């Protein structure tokens, strides 16, 4: 790390004791010193430094005990909204939104998926129509699988602005005020009994044109910025052996010799081997990324872990036998930060079913690997030259 950067960090830490400064104030100071996202421009939390030094900066602050935001609550803002705001927002938008996003004073959610547009996001139908008198946009539609919608201040939102052109070309991207009239958030209950996600109904929601990101009709390209940053976030953290779900079941196995049968033991060992192989694969990916050789293994990690989580949690119930017939609670709940490792075995089994659906289904991921990694031909597209409004649905 260059001397200037080290000095800036030291000065900041000297001026704001991380142990006593309130979080938002400390983070605000870090933003103002250009030490938030160092590769962002000056005045927007950065100092146009190389992106590669960000990790060292983060490590330096972490070593000093500096506060960070809860990633469960602010991950969408930090990981997805921020880079999109930077890349496609007007100066006004970037100045308005980046600082409170960084300090955690404002939280964000993502209004992308719709009941009719899951894997095929570009088929989305939430309409945004421009009001001639004001230039504002009036938005009507329904979004789904929205984490944090009930707590968020702002949303990144993709809409359909021109139904008469093929689907990828008639979309526009906005920042949406989640407190605006016409925004209704309803919990979406899952098979587990709880509601991690929401449905969001948008009825005549007014968005000023100033909150548009990118050109009218260019929403698909803007959304790609968001999604690419989502993919970067997946995988790439080191985990110890038996660190994941396999550790939970291994502990149960060791503590309950009365449950052992030879067949269950071999089934557990197969999964232990697969889990260790998946862990080493992630570790290898992490080392490649650290050595500056990003590989395509990242997309494989999500596929592998979804399958493993499902197999391991399924075996756990078999292993438990009679106790596997129980559940902990079906009462409707809104969990703040659900963890599969801490829940009940039945919860793990059910929740893991979502792992191969959320954030890109396993089927979509296999297609991405086949086409982008192996270079196999794309699916035949029947929807490429058809106006969105004429698509079969």
């Amino acid at each position, binding site marked *: 790390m260059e001397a200037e950067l080290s000095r800036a960090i030291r000065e900041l830490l000297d001026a704001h004791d991380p142990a006593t400064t309130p979080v938002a104030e400390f983070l605000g100071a870090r933003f103002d010193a250009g030490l938030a996202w160092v590769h962002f421009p000056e005045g927007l939390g950065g100092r146009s430094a190389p992106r590669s030094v960000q990790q060292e900066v983060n490590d330096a602050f972490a070593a000093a005990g500096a506060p960070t935001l809860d990633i469960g609550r602010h991950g969408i803002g930090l990981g997805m909204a921020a880079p999109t705001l930077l890349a496609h927002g007007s100066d006004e938008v970037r100045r308005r939104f980046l600082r409170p996003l960084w300090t955690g004073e404002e939280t964000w959610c993502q209004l992308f*998926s719709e*009941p*009719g*547009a*899951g*894997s*095929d996001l570009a*088929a989305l139908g939430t309409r945004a129509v421009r009001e001639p008198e004001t230039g504002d946009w009036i938005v009507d539609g329904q979004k*789904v*699988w929205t984490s944090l919608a009930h707590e968020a201040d702002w949303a990144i939102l993709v809409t359909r602005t021109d139904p008469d052109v093929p689907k990828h070309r008639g979309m526009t991207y906005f920042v949406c005020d989640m407190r605006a009239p016409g925004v209704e958030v309803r919990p*979406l*209950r*899952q*098979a587990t*009994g709880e509601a991690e996600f929401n449905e969001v109904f948008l009825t005549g929601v007014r968005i000023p044109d100033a909150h548009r990101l990118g050109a009218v009709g260019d929403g698909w390209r803007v959304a790609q910025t968001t999604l690419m940053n989502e993919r970067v976030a997946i995988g790439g953290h080191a985990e110890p052996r038996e660190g994941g779900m396999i550790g939970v079941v291994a502990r149960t196995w060791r503590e309950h010799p009365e449950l052992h*049968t030879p*067949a*269950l033991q071999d*089934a557990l060992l197969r999964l232990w081997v697969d889990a260790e192989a998946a862990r080493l694969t992630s570790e290898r990916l992490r080392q490649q990324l650290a050595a500056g050789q990003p590989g395509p293994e990242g997309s494989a990690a999500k596929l592998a872990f979804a399958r493993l989580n*499902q197999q391991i949690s*399924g075996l756990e*119930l*078999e292993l438990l*036998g*009679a106790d*596997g*017939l*129980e*559940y*902990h*609670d*079906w009462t409707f709940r809104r969990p703040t930060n659900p963890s599969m490792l801490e829940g009940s075995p*039945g919860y793990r*089994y*059910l929740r893991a*079913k*979502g792992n*191969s*659906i*959320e954030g890109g*289904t*396993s*089927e979509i991921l*296999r297609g991405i690997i086949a086409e982008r990694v192996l270079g196999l031909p794309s*699916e035949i*597209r*029947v*929807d490429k030259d*058809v106006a969105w409004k004429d*698509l*079969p*649905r």
Partner: protein
Amino acid sequence: MNPMTTDQAGADLGYSEVEEELRANVRALLAERAPANATLARTESEQTTDLALWRALAGELGVTGLPVPEELGGAGASWRETAVVLEELGRAVAPVPFFGSCVLATAALLALGERKILPQLASGEAIGGLAVPFAAAPGAAFPADVRVSGGLLSGTVRHVADALAADVLLVPAVAADGTAELYAVTGALVEPMVSLDMTRELAVVTLEEVEGILLASGPDATAALDAALETGAALLASEQLGVAEWALTTTVAYAKERHQFGRPIGGFQAVKHRLADLWVLVTQLRAVARAGADAVTRDEERPLYAALAQAFASGAAVTATEEAVQLHGGIGFTWEHPAHLYLKRAKSASLALGTADRHRARIASLTHL
């Protein structure tokens, strides 16, 4: 059973016309009285058993006493017809205590030649249940959860299926001298357990110095329990078949209607091939389930067919419902969509009456493998 269509061992793996008619009647009743949304709502209600549906099955269709002889108030048919009813009950994940009363308790009483309780269960006036953990496997040791002392029964049995609405429970118990005994009990405390299978809520049965009617003792008691668990394991496969068929049928229909990328998702080859594999699996499950029902009917290799049924059906029904959830995408993971009720039923059924690996171990000992 048509002798022209049996194999060397004499098994009839098809459905007779009478069985198809029975199926149509049960299916029509369930379609009307047990729609998925009502079944889902009932799981969070006070009364998780659908007693009105039970009365309709018993009174209107008369399917509660199919294997019971006519002189005992039954239909004088066989377990084959009971299996057809179970297929339809599985297809609807219907919350009725049919399996506990008309399979487990009835099989035990039939094995004993019992004549007092059986007519009540056959007519459906009374609901019976077998007070063993639902995970109990055929061939395991006689349960010792309940002890007999001074003629009174005491003990706790957890994870009992279909006990919440039961009028009479058959309770395996161990006498002071270690003798296996089977009692009929009406005075048990029965409390619900939060169960993975929301449409078959399990219960804790607590007996505190309760009186019971001694039904059998020693080898008779053991044989009756074996009959109940083996018949249950063999016939549970028919219920699992119904569950798996619902999963396949519903997913195929959804794949035809759900469009993504301008096409029905059922037109994408990877989805097509998975559904084809699933169809093969369900086709095999049907053969296994029919073989199981036929074997208990003819009392031919009952232990082997019971083990085969659960060794195969457990995985097959779980795979079918897991594929249903996955291929439905997000909607299949919601509370509103019934897919989770079938997933929970299938996974619980795979643990019920012994996990598949225990049944495979039993096959090993029966076939010297």
